[in-house]
């Protein structure tokens, strides 16, 4: 019966074809490790946020006089309101944890390199949309931190020369963060996740054109690919299971961990909290912002800290494929970068006093320094590899890749390959590339 339904649809719409080509029989390198689970996990968290967010919106009131109260109404009166709210607040942090690990994987393994530059760019777009969504969402509970965080960050746009003040007023809809701001942030916070969903589709289209990279960074032979189903469907589901255990651990046993205490106090425009701290996922950029004494300079530097990721594929001039695996110099740089981001986060959480100022400034210098250093380090690596050769493993993989390409270009197949191809799962055929 189901078969009949499918064949009726397939005559009129490429449903089975698309499912087969993009999902069940989609080729994936067999050597992916668990670091490759995080893309799917990000999509899972997006769905958690969408569903919990929509159900919260059924009870939330985006009015300065009612917002904070409506959150309490959700927490106390709405059936399972407390659960839906904690899913959403924990999910926001979970989203960034997953996305940061996903980006970290891309940096470490050099998955941003040719031909995956546009895949990298669509990913950066997603990260940028996520930050905007999170920033707007954080205003909605209308707590002290919500209000003052929004006040500070919207003020930053005032550093724009000439039109600064007008821009800030236009953003806020008022002279200060107020009812107009809250209402529009709610409207946009509800909208953006759907833009994110569309951007996810584009990100996946880009991915499916160039296919996944793998830990070696070198394209494997076609026959070393395996179909997405069942190998990676089950592996992704297992990843979700592990993720949910940690996630639900927080939701059910320590949900307030991710909520800033000051945000449980209703916003008071007359009284600023002692320490304004953004949510943890903004801390490194907050630290960078504060490390530049000049206001406009700080804003520009902070935006550059995000934007500079875009030119990364062109900064990396190595001829050694991939990322840290076969490139010890690059590996050290990546580790230093990760540690530097942690240091910046720490500084961002502290008041800008004493030794934290200079530490923050040094960490900012290191942050940008690593990017600027990359062309030189990678060129040096390229030169050395031409003199001394690559590690054996890398050479073997590259050789296999080239042989594979040649074979397919000239349509030559050896008998042994035929047999080996037949033995892979369900007669699966590797794809070009």
């Amino acid at each position: 019966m189901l078969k009949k339904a499918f064949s009726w649809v397939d005559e009129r719409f490429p449903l089975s074809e698309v499912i087969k080509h993009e999902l069940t029989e989609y080729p994936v390198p067999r050597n992916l490790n668990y670091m490759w689970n995080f893309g799917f996990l990000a999509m899972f968290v997006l769905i958690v946020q969408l569903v919990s967010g929509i159900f919260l919106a059924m009870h939330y009131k985006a009015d300065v006089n009612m917002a904070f109260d409506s959150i309490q109404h959700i927490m106390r009166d709405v059936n399972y309101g407390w659960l839906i709210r904690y899913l959403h607040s924990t999910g926001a942090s979970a989203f960034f944890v997953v996305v940061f690990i996903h980006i970290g994987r891309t940096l470490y393994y050099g998955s941003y390199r040719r031909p995956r530059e546009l895949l990298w760019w669509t990913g950066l777009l997603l990260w940028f949309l996520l930050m905007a969504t999170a920033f707007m969402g954080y205003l909605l509970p209308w707590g002290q931190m919500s209000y003052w965080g929004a006040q500070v960050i919207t003020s930053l746009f005032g550093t724009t020369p000439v039109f600064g003040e007008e821009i800030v007023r236009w953003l806020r809809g008022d002279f200060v963060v107020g009812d107009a701001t809250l209402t529009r942030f709610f409207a946009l916070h509800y909208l953006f996740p759907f833009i994110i969903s569309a951007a996810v589709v584009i990100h996946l289209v880009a991915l499916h054109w160039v296919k996944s990279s793998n830990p070696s960074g070198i394209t494997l032979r076609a026959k070393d690919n395996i179909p997405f189903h069942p190998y990676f469907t089950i592996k992704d589901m297992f990843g979700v299971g592990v993720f949910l255990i940690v996630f639900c651990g927080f939701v059910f046993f320590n949900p307030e961990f991710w909520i800033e205490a000051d945000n449980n106090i209703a916003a008071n425009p007359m009284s600023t909290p002692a320490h304004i701290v953004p949510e943890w996922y903004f801390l490194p950029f907050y630290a960078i912002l504060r490390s530049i004494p000049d206001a406009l300079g700080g804003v520009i530097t902070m935006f550059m800290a995000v934007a500079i990721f875009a030119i990364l594929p062109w900064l990396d001039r190595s001829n050694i494929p991939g990322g840290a695996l076969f490139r010890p110099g690059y590996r050290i740089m990546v580790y230093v970068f990760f540690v530097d981001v942690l240091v910046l986060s720490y500084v961002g959480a502290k008041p800008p006093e004493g030794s934290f100022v200079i530490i923050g400034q040094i960490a900012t210098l290191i942050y940008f320094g690593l990017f600027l250093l990359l062309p030189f380090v990678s060129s040096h690596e390229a030169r050395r590899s031409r003199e001394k050769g690559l590690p054996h493993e890398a050479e073997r993989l590259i050789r296999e890749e080239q042989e594979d390409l040649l074979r397919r270009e000239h349509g030559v197949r050896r008998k042994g390959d035929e047999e080996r191809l037949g033995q892979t799962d369900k007669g699966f055929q590797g794809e070009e590339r």
Partner: protein
Amino acid sequence: MKRVLVVLSVVALLMGVASAMASAVGKLKSLDVDESNEARQRGAETVISACMMCHSLKYVKFMDLADIGMSKEQIEYLLEDQKIEDRMLSLMPMEIREESYGKVPPDLSLITIARKKGPQYVYTLLTDYYYQEDGETNNYLFEGIKMPDVLAYADAESDQERADIEAQMRDVVSFLKWAADPHSDERRSLGVYVIIYLVIFTTLLYLLKRRIWSRLH
């Protein structure tokens, strides 16, 4: 070895960041909050009879006390002019409170989650009163506090007296912790079932994953 060092330093840094965010709040006394309904009920009595002179708990209704096991009669016993469906608002008008204390005493509905280590903070505050040389009361945790020493902790002369007030304050904290998070019992018991389910499900997924991947040579 290098890997281990790297992982260890990352974890150390992460913990550092987390602790940076949780800034130290003076010296807080340690407290294991009694989460029993009995403790919460005792705390409710003290809060309603003593604290609500000046403080309100606007997100809590008197009838919510049924959720910690109080009967309708027990609740009504604590009421003065209020009705059982009313919210717990202070009977003293706001202007008078503002005049006496310089500002409106904060609402207590969320106080234990509106401060870092809230329960310990509240307990320490309530039991840190002392007499200055000039005969005025002050507070070690909150210098220059405007709130009076409601249960006369600084007046206590014997260890027993102090212990009694401390016990009462612990009950107050028990109640306030519930008031800030009335679904905590349900949340944790549901959480146990959810985690157990997830462990079972994830184990099944793992076994299935191993089986499927074992087909690859």
